[in-house]
């Protein structure tokens, strides 16, 4: 088990492409985490950043979008190279209900995929919306289908499945699939829309949020959202708490602590 405080160096076992811009790195090591919990990933000499655990357990892994210097350096790491991990941190999803609707927008599928696995292992019904800009960017479709989820695809450009935003397809499913609990991770605008739709229908939900995180352990205030620390009290929040955030979908802090639009 790797739940102690402090950085642990683990070796890259496999660093493979999921889509053109998203990769999964499996790190030879065991890390038990609840889906939605995250780790701080240290690429020695480069950067350290938060990543959800996409494969908990033995040979654990993270799934990441290659964006800037840190994730580019991670993408280039060959087998055997060392990556530092601390965590898991924060509050993950807690499985509730029997007929579940899950929504993973873009790389937001990273924590949703293991949640699908666990829900299906408990034989719960799972309707899953996988959303992406275009069909080439869809993440974990095969993994979720294999787990036995009913997969619904949405693409912004209509290259596969529903044409439009994942939140629109999810809203339709709130009525047609009759879920008793909703789980979401993805762009904040998507989450805001699903929060509104679930609230109107009084269907409980949980969503994972993102803020700039430096310490990851609830002391530096960089991830503050209305006085709540996303790294410690989140990143997963239930509907009652999501509805109270005045800054959700509106503003976030940049690395200097300035408020910028989401």
């Amino acid at each position: 088990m790797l739940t102690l405080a402090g950085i642990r160096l683990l070796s890259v076992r496999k660093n493979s492409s999921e889509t053109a811009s998203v990769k999964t790195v499996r790190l030879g090591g065991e890390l038990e985490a609840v889906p939605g919990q995250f780790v701080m990933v240290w690429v020695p000499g480069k950067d350290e950043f938060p990543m959800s655990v996409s494969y908990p357990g033995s040979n654990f892994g993270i799934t990441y979008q290659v964006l800037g210097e840190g994730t580019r350096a991670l993408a280039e790491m060959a087998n055997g190279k060392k990556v530092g991990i601390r965590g898991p941190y924060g509050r993950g999803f807690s499985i509730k209900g029997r007929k579940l609707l899950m929504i993973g927008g873009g790389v937001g599928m990273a924590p949703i995929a293991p949640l699908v696995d666990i829900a299906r292992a408990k034989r719960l019904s799972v309707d899953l919306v996988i959303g992406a800009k275009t069909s080439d960017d869809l993440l974990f479709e095969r993994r979720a289908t294999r787990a036995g989820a009913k997969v619904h695809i949405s693409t912004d450009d209509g290259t596969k499945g529903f044409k439009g935003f994942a939140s629109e397809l999810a809203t339709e499913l709130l009525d047609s699939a009759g879920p008793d609990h909703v789980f979401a991770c993805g762009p904040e605008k998507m989450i805001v829309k699903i929060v509104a739709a679930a609230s109107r229908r009084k269907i409980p939900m949980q969503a994972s949020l993102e803020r700039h995180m430096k310490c990851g352990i609830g002391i530096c205030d960089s991830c503050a959202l209305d006085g709540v620390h996303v790294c410690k009290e989140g990143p997963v929040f239930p509907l009652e708490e999501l509805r109270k955030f005045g800054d959700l979908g509106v503003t976030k802090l940049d690395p200097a602590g300035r408020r910028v639009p989401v």
Partner: protein
Amino acid sequence: MTDISVEVCGLRLRNPTMLASGVLDETARSMLAVAKSGAGAIVTKSIGIEPRSGHPNPSVVELEDGLLNAMGLPNPGIDLFSKEVKEARKGGVPIIGSVFGGTEEEIAELAGMMAEAGADAVELNLSCPHAKGYGAELGSSPERVETSCRLAKRACGVPVFAKLTPNTSYIAELAKAAERGGADAVVAINTLKGMAIDPEAGMPILGNRFGGLSGPAIKPVGIRCVYEIYESVEIPVIGVGGVTTGRDAVEYIMAGAQAVQLGTAVWIRGEKVFREVCREISQFMKENGYDSVKEMLGVAHSGRH
């Protein structure tokens, strides 16, 4: 009746615990949450003239007995932060605005702006061990500490606290310099300069390589510094460094601190630490026959060997 309220430089505190600078204090809403959880006063993150993103991550290393941090003074700059100070004051506890700068003049200017923003007192961070050009160099020179305090006093009408570095052999000299400059109180200690290397990676962990050590590991150093300072100056001392329990707070008070600040303890025990430490202080006082915090102040100096 045990009374744990204290008065420091005219500031009335419902209890002797303050939130230390740099922890959960970059936004008003977080400071309001800490006020609600029981802190007697709040020290803000150290604020400069311009916005600063701070050092690259990793910026903290978790150790068994504390933390090593190199946040690098991230802050939105005084203009934007003024709004947070105003908002934070609604929590009903004194807000102490912490400032840092590269020169004595800059520090004084910031002190004035903090006071204007509504801060009940100003804390001069003369002691950050890991932000180049700020704090450490200026803060380890008695002359520059004295000038900083003098100019800051001139620039603002609220109490001025000088927060000192333990990374010197002469902390009592720095305290005397602060007193000569007109500081109303000294705060000791900031973090101890330190470093961690990951053996497997073969390199320093912190993005800035060097950082500051805090938490239980540094408490004996903090206690010693407060004890020495108490014997050297007349102005009040505020104790910081590893306060995690009520007994730790009592230790600082007996060394000569009129109040204590908690930073790393928030990581160790959560935001509820303020209420719990206060309960533990009251409990100790009851068990040992103290009615007020003042009765415990500096007692370790009279009964010494």
